[in-house]
């Protein structure tokens, strides 16, 4: 017999509390490790909590709609024969809120640091140890877009998630805005961090940067995972989104642009909008994004990739059927041997919208 508390998880540095959206199982239901048990809304987006043990959901402590701090008991999981009284006693004896210590001793703690690369200031998040997994976000994003992936992967790998030039807290100078310039900057950063043979995961623009990185700096990249990549044959460039961000003045303009990214516009939370709004209001940010947009609309960088796809290391392609930002890649035009996974339930942000599915695919690569 065993009794375990299900506590409010901490997804990302900024998360302080979460709202219970829906329990996906009822009291008394049996669960296996990895089963989805409830939906939690964070300040960023709604995500699903998976069971970390097999057992039975003995008690729901926090019900739908309740807002609980990180580390608070939200439910109780039991294994074997446990009485109601024993669950009550367990709850009485357990601290209501317990936050896992994230001190220097714990190398899975997420650390943010600033490094100078080719004269540019880069903000980079790191967690965990082992094989390097590099996560490159998309246009107008930042390392925080990977919060669910970082949480999932940091126990098994050294996760490195930079803010690309022009984004987040990194330098706003993007030079000519070419994929090569962005890839060279990431390469110099990885070299400085003594990374080689990494699994490089890119989303959207970040996926195009990842491909360029693999072609121009092959020793750094062991394999690629491309999530809704920009720049593949058959793809599109959605200027409504790109220019929507570049020209946004008010937060409501940003919201309209971000809603293009997801399948259900309601998943774009106020905090997600505020985060992007704050980032693009930094001096020089929208100008930098304008340079990147123009480069993508020009298309020459993407065309150069099309001719070199055969030279890439092993590729896992994670594409979304409802992606209006980069469209659907023409799989027939891709090299044989790419592992292609189609997602049905997300828009352009599956690593946030259907994180569990994407995380499982990424975990399998390590």
């Amino acid at each position: 017999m065993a009794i375990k508390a299900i506590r409010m998880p901490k997804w990302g540095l900024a998360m302080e509390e979460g709202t219970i959206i829906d329990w996906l199982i009822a009291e008394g239901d049996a669960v296996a490790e990895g089963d989805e048990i409830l939906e939690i809304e964070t300040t960023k987006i709604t995500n699903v909590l998976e069971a970390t043990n097999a057992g039975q959901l003995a008690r729901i402590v926090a019900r739908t709609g309740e807002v609980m701090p990180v580390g608070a008991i939200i439910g109780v999981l039991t294994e074997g024969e446990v009485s109601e009284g024993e669950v009550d006693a367990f709850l009485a004896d357990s601290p209501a809120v317990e936050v896992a210590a994230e001190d220097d001793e714990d190398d899975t703690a997420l650390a943010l640091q600033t490094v100078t690369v080719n004269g540019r200031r880069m903000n980079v998040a790191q967690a965990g140890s082992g094989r390097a997994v590099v996560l490159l976000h998309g246009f107008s994003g930042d390392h925080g877009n990977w919060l669910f992936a970082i949480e999932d992967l940091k126990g098994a790998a050294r996760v490195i998630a930079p803010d690309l030039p022009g984004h987040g807290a990194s330098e706003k100078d993007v030079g000519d805005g070419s994929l090569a310039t962005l890839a060279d900057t990431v390469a110099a950063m990885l070299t400085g961090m003594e990374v080689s043979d990494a699994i490089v995961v890119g989303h959207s623009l970040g996926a195009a940067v990842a491909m360029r990185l693999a072609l121009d700096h092959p020793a750094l990249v062991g394999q690629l995972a491309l999530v809704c990549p920009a720049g593949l044959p058959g793809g599109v460039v959605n200027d409504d989104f790109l220019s929507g961000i570049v020209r946004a003045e008010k937060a409501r303009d940003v919201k309209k642009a971000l809603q293009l990214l997801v399948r259900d516009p309601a998943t774009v939370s106020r905090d997600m909008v505020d985060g992007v709004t704050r980032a693009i209001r930094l001096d020089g940010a929208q100008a930098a994004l304008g340079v990147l947009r123009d480069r993508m609309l020009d298309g020459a960088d993407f065309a150069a990739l099309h001719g070199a796809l055969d030279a890439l290391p092993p590729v896992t392609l994670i594409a979304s059927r409802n992606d209006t930002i980069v469209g659907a890649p023409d799989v027939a035009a891709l090299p044989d041997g790419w592992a292609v996974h189609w997602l049905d339930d997300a828009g352009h942000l599956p690593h946030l919208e259907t994180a569990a599915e994407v995380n499982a695919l990424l975990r399998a690569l390590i």
Partner: protein
Amino acid sequence: MARISYRKAVNQALDQEMTRDASVILMGIDVGGGSGGSGDVGSVGGVMGVTKGLYPKYGPNRVIDTPISESAIIGAAAGAAVTGMRPVAELMFVDFIGVCLDQIYNQAAKFRYMFGGKARTPLVIRTMGGAGMRAGAQHSQNLHPILTMIPGLKVVMPSNPYDAKGLLIRAIRDDDPVVFLESKALYDMKGEVPEEAYEIPFGEANFLRDGGDATIVAFGAMVPRAMQAADRLAKDGIRVTVIDPRTTSPLDEEAILDSVDETGRLVVVDESPPRCSLAADVAALVASQAFDALKAPVGMVTCPHTPVPFAPNLEDAYMPSAEKIEAAVRKTL
């Protein structure tokens, strides 16, 4: 991201804009703080220490300690603005604005209009207001309603460190006169503020919390109190939207009207006497443009129509409190 105080956020905005643009100058009583003496480096930087460190860094030509004459400070700053500088003039307390009101409302605020759009007046008047500091009736007022009603002035009331920095940078880069009303009660408030410079546009409200049961609109130092009230209401399952308009002129009417459309209930919190207050202004806006959405009369939480009392117990009673805001919301339900 660094957590810094509201005071430091204002200081950082001034510092970064002075570095970026040599036409940005400061003037006011003690803004240099001890300039001319041997203590330049350790100069206090104003009565609240907001301009600390700027005199040693930028010198007497750009950080100008003035005589105690508000009409001279604002008159000189308005003149400097129309001739190409970007002055940030400080009035130690907004209570003293009476002696330089002509320079503000009848001069600076009129230049663009009267010179056919050819005059630019990139003037910022920084000042502080608000009660709760036991400073008496002549040093505790909030006079934003008087300033908000003047066409040609922009009026800013930051409620947190992030907004203070971004709104002040916006104010300095703006080509029209801006009155930037800091809150004495908030100077020690800390929050995450990017080190880089950034602008927050005027006329864009900040939504601090979303909830479907009622809307609270609060200004300046009343915003944290509105959030306390929202926390207390949440314990009973009452979810409120809290809106900080950030600027009283221009006012983000769309944000307020959209929210009332959803909630049907409104409480406005304004630290000023009730007559001709922002509370009355927002209540009138909603009554005239969203009457059909209202499910209850608009609640107004303001100060009484009296000077700010000096007796501490009376001063506390004078202020809108979280308890009063909570009660006003419950009354609309």
